[in-house]
């Protein structure tokens, strides 16, 4: 019986199906735990799924490349999902038209704060040049942030992790921080979360309300646009890249 089992494992572990299935199941389990915990911020489904998957991959001695061969099908959907943000945006457009000036200035302030705070804190704690570069676009949605860093000669895969971490942090502490700052308008809450925490923040904002989610998605898109224009200029002016 033993050799047969082994053969099945060898077969499955090289097929994309296994890691695609594991990714979806780990997320569903993470989401179930999140809801069972009474939606406690620390039980963030992405965080739990990542921890579970890393543990499984390390225990089975599987490389990230092998894992990604299956997980890429989930990863790919980031593109269509970004396009899909146009729909809730359309249905919340009247409010956008009324608030465009405060939101525009807020976006500019947030975009600059994200980049400059990353550079300042990285320098303060003696981060290497590559790490500093990878930290700068961490509030920008993953595919765009990776593109920015790659163009500037930094490590894109490190950026991806910093982007996801920033997203999780924003989703975990964002709502509580906004409560403390007494920001109650769902449009403003969503926009601030999306500027800071891109898609993961947007997923969190959609749990608050469709309106918060729509504005978060809008902020994510606009921040991607603005950052891809501003960050290269900013780094050039600071003499970093």
């Amino acid at each position, binding site marked *: 019986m033993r050799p047969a089992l082994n053969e099945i494992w060898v077969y499955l572990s090289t097929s994309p199906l296994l890691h695609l299935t594991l990714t979806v199941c780990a997320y569903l389990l993470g989401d179930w735990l999140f809801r069972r915990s009474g939606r406690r911020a620390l039980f963030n489904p992405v965080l739990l799924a990542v921890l579970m998957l890393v543990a499984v991959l390390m225990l089975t001695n599987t490389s990230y490349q092998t894992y990604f061969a299956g997980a890429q099908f989930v990863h790919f959907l980031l593109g269509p999902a970004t396009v899909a943000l146009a729909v809730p945006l359309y249905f919340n457009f009247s409010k956008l038209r009324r608030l465009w000036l405060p939101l525009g200035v807020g976006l500019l302030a947030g975009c600059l704060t994200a980049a400059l705070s990353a550079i300042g804190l990285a320098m303060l704690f003696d981060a290497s040049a590559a790490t500093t570069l990878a930290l700068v676009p961490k509030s920008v949605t993953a595919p765009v942030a990776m593109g920015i860093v790659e163009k500037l000669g930094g490590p894109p895969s490190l950026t991806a992790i910093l982007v996801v971490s920033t*997203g999780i*942090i924003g989703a975990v502490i964002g709502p509580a921080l906004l409560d403390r700052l007494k920001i109650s308008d769902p449009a403003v809450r969503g*926009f601030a979360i999306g500027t800071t925490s891109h898609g993961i923040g947007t997923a969190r904002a959609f749990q608050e309300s469709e309106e918060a989610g729509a504005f978060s998605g809008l902020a994510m898109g606009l921040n991607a646009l603005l950052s891809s224009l501003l960050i290269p200029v900013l780094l050039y002016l600071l003499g970093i890249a």
Partner: protein
Amino acid sequence: MLQSFAILLVFQLAGEACTQLLHLAVPGPVLGMALLFAAIALRPALGYAMRTTTGGLLQHLSMLFVPAGVGVMLHAGRLRDEWLAIVVAVVLGAVVTLAVTALTIRVLADRMPQQEAGEE
């Protein structure tokens, strides 16, 4: 549902094609989102038709970040060496960015001529 998904892919493709052809710094999907928004503004029926599918996709948006997140295992060494700088920059950076953005919007919105509540 399949129609809506096809529309999303077509707009993403259009976005990617435009950014490549015109050498834009904007990512393809973001331009695709802008193009789809323009299309729905011209034909609102399109938005109503797609609403169910996009709602379903966006509800599970955070799952799509899991594969990138698992990439953490590629950088164990760097994370061990520079964990303090990374943790401080990520956590404090997120707090400051969130607060600055939200407070800027609120201060400016409060100064705008108020519209009567319950309009809309």
